[in-house]
């Protein structure tokens, strides 16, 4: 049953990644693309956690944590740049 649940969840997360990727390509504003990239990062974190459960190892949590941190920093930097025209003042 867990295997079926993992398969269903993987397909759903792949669909979520595709939808976010579509918004990333479509735009129209740079902020839409930044938001889509943030969503891609969060979904990638979820996919890594799911993969860790599937393989039964705890080695993917560091990777998931790093992806989450990089996603937040990237989104904050892009939003700051679009807000001020500069990342660090």
């Amino acid at each position, binding site marked *: 049953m867990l295997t079926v649940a993992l398969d269903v969840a993987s397909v759903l997360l792949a*669909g*979520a990644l595709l939808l976010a990727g579509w918004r990333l390509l479509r735009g129209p504003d740079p902020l839409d693309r930044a938001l889509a990239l943030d969503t891609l990062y969060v979904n990638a974190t979820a996919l890594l956690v799911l993969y860790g459960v599937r393989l*039964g190892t*705890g080695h993917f949590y560091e990777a998931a*944590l790093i992806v989450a941190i990089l996603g937040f920093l990237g989104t*904050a930097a892009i939003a700051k740049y679009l*807000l001020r025209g500069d990342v660090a003042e």
Partner: protein
Amino acid sequence: MSGFVEVLVAVLIVAGAAFAFLGSLGLARFPDFYMRLHGPSKATTLGIGCLLLASLAHFALRGEASLHEVLITLFVSLTTPVSAHLLARAARHRRLPARGESGPAARVDATARPDAPSGNAPR
């Protein structure tokens, strides 16, 4: 008992992935930026919270419980509102039109400051 936990883990995994999918669906389908902000910032956070709870239960059942999942959950639920707020503020600054407004010039509300400089205005 372990059968019950397995059912719980499976349900939480499917529910979390469904919430993440709905968040991305909202991102792809809503008509303006301010609506699009809702999907990823709420539904996707709930989805990843469900997934991490499922992972926590799964590894606790096997006797390998760790605090990594709690760490990721805390981090995601702390940073998502911050990045959403930053993005929304940048959208207001860039005068992105909301639905029903035809463009930047049509924006009339209490916070509109047409005399504000569009460049590096100090806040």
